[in-house]
């Protein structure tokens, strides 16, 4: 009996080995990633900027100071990494969802036998792929910034960052579900830039303004990433993770309701 089953499996054409629903998810994810990698205005900045800026500030401009201060070296590495996590999710979702909603692609997919969650999962996996590439590039340039993390810790912080892109995807999704295709990039920028500064991930905030950082998912992710490399951090990583999960769930729920609404 076992041989017949095996035979049947090996005789099946390759595409049929993947269950039908999986095929739909896999195909959406593949093509979503491919299209974003091909979009120069998206792939260029989000893949190159984090490591590029890190080299500019952490190596070329302030390399000498940082060499004497390992704490600052780690702080800069984390800051630019988190910045790299934010972009693909916020812009990727914000811009594509608003465009696809407005130009009828989401509607078409709803009429076609595409699983309802496939376009969303595809975009999320796309963001995670981008973050993985960003983290690989950050790991590659880290030694230039006098940061020598063991491979295990680099891997840990990369995993945290990849998973940590979820709340930023949810935020982008929410904006994309509300804003028009034209205004979505402006709205995303309106959140993205202040969030970088006000989270205290690139430079410390004055004591009196520290509370602002707690409102930002970037701050919470930064703390988890620091914990992942056994560096000093504020608060419990579990609490930070809970905040990020809550943000992801609430924003996604709002956006799904808005997008899946019947005419």
């Amino acid at each position, binding site marked *: 009996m076992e041989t017949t089953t095996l035979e049947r499996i090996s005789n099946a054409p390759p595409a049929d080995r993947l269950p*039908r629903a999986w*095929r*739909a998810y*896999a*195909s*959406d994810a*593949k*093509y979503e990633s*491919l*299209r*974003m990698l*091909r*979009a120069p205005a998206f792939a260029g900045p989000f893949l190159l900027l984090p490591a590029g800026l890190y080299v500019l500030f952490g190596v070329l401009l302030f390399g000498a100071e940082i060499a004497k201060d390992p704490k600052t070296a780690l702080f800069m590495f984390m800051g630019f990494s988190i910045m790299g996590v934010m972009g693909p999710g916020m812009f990727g979702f914000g811009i594509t969802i608003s*465009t696809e909603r407005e*130009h*009828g*692609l989401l*509607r*078409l997919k*709803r*009429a*076609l*036998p*595409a*699983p309802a969650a496939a376009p969303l999962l595809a975009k999320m996996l796309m963001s995670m792929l981008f973050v993985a590439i960003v983290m690989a590039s950050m790991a590659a340039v880290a030694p230039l910034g006098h940061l020598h993390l063991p491979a295990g810790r680099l891997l840990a912080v990369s995993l945290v960052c990849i998973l940590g892109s979820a709340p930023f995807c949810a935020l982008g999704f929410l904006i994309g579900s509300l804003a028009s295709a034209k205004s979505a990039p402006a709205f995303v920028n309106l959140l993205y830039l202040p969030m970088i500064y006000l989270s205290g991930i690139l430079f410390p905030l004055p004591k009196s303004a520290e509370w602002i950082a707690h409102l930002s998912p970037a701050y919470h992710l930064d703390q988890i990433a620091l914990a992942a490399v056994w560096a000093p951090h504020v608060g419990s990583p579990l609490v930070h993770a809970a905040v990020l999960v809550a943000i992801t769930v609430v924003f996604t729920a709002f956006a799904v309701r808005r997008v899946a609404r*019947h*005419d």
Partner: protein
Amino acid sequence: MTNANIAELAAVTKRFGKVVALDEFSLAVGPGELFALLGPNGAGKTTAISLLLGLARPDKGSARLFGLSPESMEARRQIGVMLQEAALIPELRVAEQIDMVAAYYPDPMPVERALELTGTAELGRRPYGKLSGGQKRQVQFAIALVGRPRLLFLDEPTVGLDVQSREAVWATLRRLIGEGCSIMLTTHYLEEAEALADRVAVIAKGRLIATGTVDEMRALVVRKRITCRTILRAEEVSGWPDVQTVSSDAHGLHITASNTENVVRRLLVADEDLHGLEVQSAGLAEAFTELTQEER
């Protein structure tokens, strides 16, 4: 409700705010049939398609696909869709775009076959964003076909196509019908309905005005139109037997009648000075205009 119908709207009413898009509207598409929903822009054609695709829910009445809810995955796996407005992904190549949609179906045709059927084989490697409007429509047509659907929905499929491409789409549709596929298309081109459809439904202002074969539709409105200059007044003539409508303007009196001979005979007797007499039969185009305008 019969199960033989592949797609069915039963007495549906759909409102958007105060606008009634569909009013007690019914239609049914049978197996192997090409059904054309014909009407001017804004008549409710796209709303009817949206209800059958599960993109909107009727306020009253019911929409069924293969006897199932149009929102069910099982029903959707058996349909192909070409919407009026759907921008596909500009960065993807044509073949990739079709492959992405093919993955949603249980038994899709090879991408090359879909390209071939829609005459887009040479576009396969081009980025979708670089195509002309007409080429994009053809790719959307390929996407509708790739899942080997039992029922194909085409919302204004040939808008923006040149004559040659339109003929090519028509030829493919005839071929699909020959292979047992059912097709429901909306159009405001009469030639399209005339060239393809087994059955036509005329819709205006959300209401079904007439339904039948193309010939039946023509017969229904093969009223003839009489124009003449006469001293007779419209009110007088409108009471005559066989006379359906009468109007008068600077060109004279316009009469539509089911039996023109009788009416002409009586006209000539009643007004010896009558002149400029013309009798025309209405084509489907006129019939259509007439049918939809009567509703206004």
